[in-house]
């Protein structure tokens, strides 16, 4: 049955890696951790074990950031991963919790509608009406379960949650307990419990953390990839794993296409052409690596299902334009300028220029 699952959880997908790491882990493990902090960092950054087993690299970027993130979870502060959309925040948090707790499923997706009952606990109203406030009538949230079992809980998009609800995390984080006044009892957190929250610093109109809550978090800012090589590697890796999981055979070497897409994204993001000669306007979107990945993926699907399975500029153009033009008026002008000043002039890029021209 597991073959049919669209996307495996990290701990299932990399079960073997975690198992091997566990076997060869010589460092001390904090209580209720699956692996030692050292092994968790190895799991994230990749490496070769003593028996030659290859651990794949999950986060391509600065090792120190991962070290800070993991070290934070060994202290009693929670971890806040901060950064632009698409800088692998959720990806990192998923893998960290998979490596530490073997369970990346304790997630609260933060939205403007997330209420206190999905952070602390809810009630099964049928039970509540028939039996009154009894322990059985409580609906546990991921936070409560994480506290009881000593696991890492993930809160996605923390800043989207209303401030009043956010602040209900304060007691949980500082006193490591969750009072249930209705039952005159409380849930005490078991060792190993902690929270990884993610938040992006691009959206406007989000609920900034109160300073009391801020103080409970150590913040790690995940940057956009520093070099083009790094970014191409990320896209390539993710595209390869995508085509494997969707059974898309990749016929031709697509590295060159990846390079082109990443170059377009970087140029627009940085507001200057890669040779540093032309100044460009930046569109309103973030143009993250994640978006570059999805452009490649949709291009591949198009090529496979509607084309002759070889990736062409036409297949990429629609995805590219969709990713860049978020604001139909402003971004369109920006991209048209970019097409005329950069794409058109570049040798060997005529195909992509023409493909974009057709759509715009």
């Amino acid at each position, binding site marked *: 049955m597991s073959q049919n699952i669209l996307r495996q959880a990290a701990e299932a997908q990399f079960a073997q890696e975690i198992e091997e790491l566990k076997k060869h882990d010589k460092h001390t493990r904090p209580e209720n951790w699956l692996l030692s902090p050292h092994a968790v960092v190895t799991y994230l950054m990749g490496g070769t074990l003593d028996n030659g087993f290859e651990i794949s690299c999950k986060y391509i970027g600065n090792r120190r950031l991962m*070290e*800070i993130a993991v*070290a*934070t979870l060994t*202290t009693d502060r929670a971890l806040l991963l901060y950064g632009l959309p698409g800088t692998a925040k959720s990806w990192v948090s998923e893998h960290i919790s998979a490596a530490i707790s073997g369970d990346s499923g304790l997630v609260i997706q933060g939205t403007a509608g997330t209420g206190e009952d999905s952070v602390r606990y809810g009630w099964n109203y049928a039970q509540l009406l028939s039996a009154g406030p009894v322990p059985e009538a409580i609906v546990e949230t991921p936070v409560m379960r994480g506290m009881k079992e000593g696991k890492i809980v993930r809160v996605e998009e923390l800043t989207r949650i209303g401030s009043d609800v956010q602040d209900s995390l304060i007691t949980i984080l500082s006193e490591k307990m969750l009072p249930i006044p209705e039952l005159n009892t409380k849930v005490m957190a078991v060792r190993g419990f902690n929270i990884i929250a993610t938040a992006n610093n691009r959206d406007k109109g989000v609920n900034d953390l109160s300073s009391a809550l801020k103080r409970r978090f*150590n*913040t790690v800012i995940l940057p956009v990839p520093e070099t083009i090589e790094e970014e191409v590697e990320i896209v390539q890796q993710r595209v390869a794993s995508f085509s494997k999981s969707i059974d898309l055979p990749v016929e031709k070497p697509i590295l060159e296409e990846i390079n082109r897409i990443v170059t377009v994204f970087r140029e627009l993001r940085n507001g200057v052409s890669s040779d540093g000669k032309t100044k460009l306007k930046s569109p309103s979107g973030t143009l993250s690596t994640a978006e570059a990945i999805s452009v490649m993926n949709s291009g591949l699907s198009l090529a496979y299902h509607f084309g002759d399975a070889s990736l062409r500029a036409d297949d990429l153009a629609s995805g590219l334009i969709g990713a860049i033009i978020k604001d139909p008026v402003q971004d369109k002008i920006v991209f048209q300028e970019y097409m005329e000043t950069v794409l058109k002039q570049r040798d060997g890029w005529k195909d992509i220029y023409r493909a974009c021209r057709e759509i715009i």
Partner: protein
Amino acid sequence: MSVHLLGIRHHGPGSSRHVLNALAEIQPDIILIEGPPEGEAMLSWAAHKDMQPPVALLAYVPDNPQQAVFYPFTIHSPEWNAILYGLNNHIPLRFIDMPLAHGFATEWKETPLHNETSELAAHVRKNPIAYLAEIAGFDDPEEWWEHRFEIAQQPYEVFEAIAESMAALRQTLPQRADRREDIREAFMRKSIRIAQKEGFERIAVICGAWHVPALTQLPKQKEDDALLKNLPKTKVESTWIPWTNDRMAFESGYGAGVESPGWYMHHWQHPDDHGTLWLSHTARVFRENQVDISSAHIIEAVRLAGALAGLRGFPRPGLKELNEATVAVMCMGEPVLMKVIYRELIVGKAFGQIPEGTPQVPLQRNLELLAKRFRIKVVPEHKTLKLDLREENDLQKSILLHRLQLLDINWGTMESVSGKGTFKEEWTLRWYPELTIRLLEKAPWGNTVEEAATKYLKNTASKCTRLDEITPLVQSAIPADLPTALNAVMQKMDELAASTSDISMLMDAFPPLAQVSRYGNVRKTDRESIDLIMTTIFYRAIAGLPAGCTGIDDEQAAVMTDKIKEVNQAIRMLEKPELTEDWTAALETIFHADRTAPFIQGYCCKALYDSRQLGMDSTFNAFSKALSPSNEPSASANWLEGFLTDAATVLILDDVIWAVVNDWLQSLDDETFLQVVPLLRRTFANFSNVEKRKIAGRAKQGKAGALIPQTIDIDPQRAEKVLPVLEMLMGF
């Protein structure tokens, strides 16, 4: 008899500790230190109670002070501690490096061999520790050394380990022909031999780790002697100068510096600190900079730093761990805030002090004396000094700073002062160690600042061959109050002016002189001689001016107009009737000459109107004549541009000019209008949007166009009542 080689890392606090422990154990009867023998005489000052590191031993060639080397020392420098140890225990000290007398006299050329191994060797030689760190898997050499040797509180074996690793490094690396290094090490060996011959029993040698293997086994004396034969020599002098923490990062006599002297200092003073104290300091700095940091933050940061060190397998957190913890816990992950920590703590603001009476060159002593008299501290910190030149003391300060500027010693930089009058000056003072070199460089010019500045200025002036070279000298010489030098400069200026046929240079020379003549009296300068020269330059300039305005291209015309504008302003400022008259006459000649460049003509028309030489009617006539359709369109455009250059405000506020332009525009028939529209556009394009909007607004209102002088009946009695209030407002 034994020789103990203590290989150190320059400025490493851990090395310092190890050296002190080793010295206490060895009980040497002589200490040999890597350093220039010329500095030995200055060593005794190190123990002076007023000596406050960081300081640097400065060695220089007296004839050419640009040839200079600094040997910086700070409280955690191993060499410094060894020196203090020697002085306090009355043990003889010697510097054993190659004498700088040879070092400065020879040009050291490295023979570059272009193949891979030698490139690697060069890289390793430059920073052997970085190479070892690379091998050990550290990306930062500082960090590796810190964890390996500085933090580890191990006893004496450290030196053996260092010696061994360096020996291994030197053996495996391909040999590189570096004569300078060979000679330096030969000198060190020679000194060791001498000490041995003199019968010292326990010799301690303190040198950079890299040199240890070369000193371990002494080769035959003959070989060394051959190396050291016939080296050229030059005269070298040395002195102590105060140093600063941010300069510790400098490359100097001890090679590359350290990037985090503040952290090392902390480490030296508090070897047992596991981050608590450091992070408390960090928190304090943040609070001083309006970043709220609670004690809980510190606690968490200490914990995170500890956890990070544990994760990386270090016994205790180093600077990197502490910084990362600070960013994650205190700065919300935002590294920008770390800048202030870097400046205040990691580098630190410490600056040294040297005792009074330390040997100095006379000029240096004179400057210090003056600084003391004026109560200005010679410190490497930014300081603002506000001077009121009407007060004698402030005037003297200003003169001193100006004189130093003449000598290229930019201790102070003048800020533009907002406010009325020329009697106010604002200076930003900041002394930095390179200035000491510049000071030494100027030492041959004289023993006092005044004397040196005078002679230096005279010399510079005598070397000038063009008028535009000497003009700035006049500007800088006057506030420096150097009458004899100024006379020389003036004479030279007169000479040059006579032989100059370039009108634009003459015109450039005029405004500064006018400024001096007008405001020079604040400084009590000799006005007559200036006036004389100014007048001659003025007449020389206007004699050739009309001719100079003909037959030039648009670009030149714009340049010339700028100059005319400046002279015009200067003349108005001078308020000397005879000059004004002649200037106006010159302008008129230019204006009426047919072949004057239209741009200049336009400007002159405007200037003449401004000085009321041209009435409204004649201005109007000139205007429409210049813009009549039969003219070359580009000429008309240039004329208009010249007339209206940066005159948008005039157009908005001056009714006459407005009327002239407006009437002319309205007098055009449709066809002509279409022809001149591009010209107008070109001129108006230079105005800012606000100005254009105002002009448009005005055009909308004043359809009538013609000037309507408004006469209002004023009741003198009532008007008088306003006067006291006005006076109060104006501050009379």
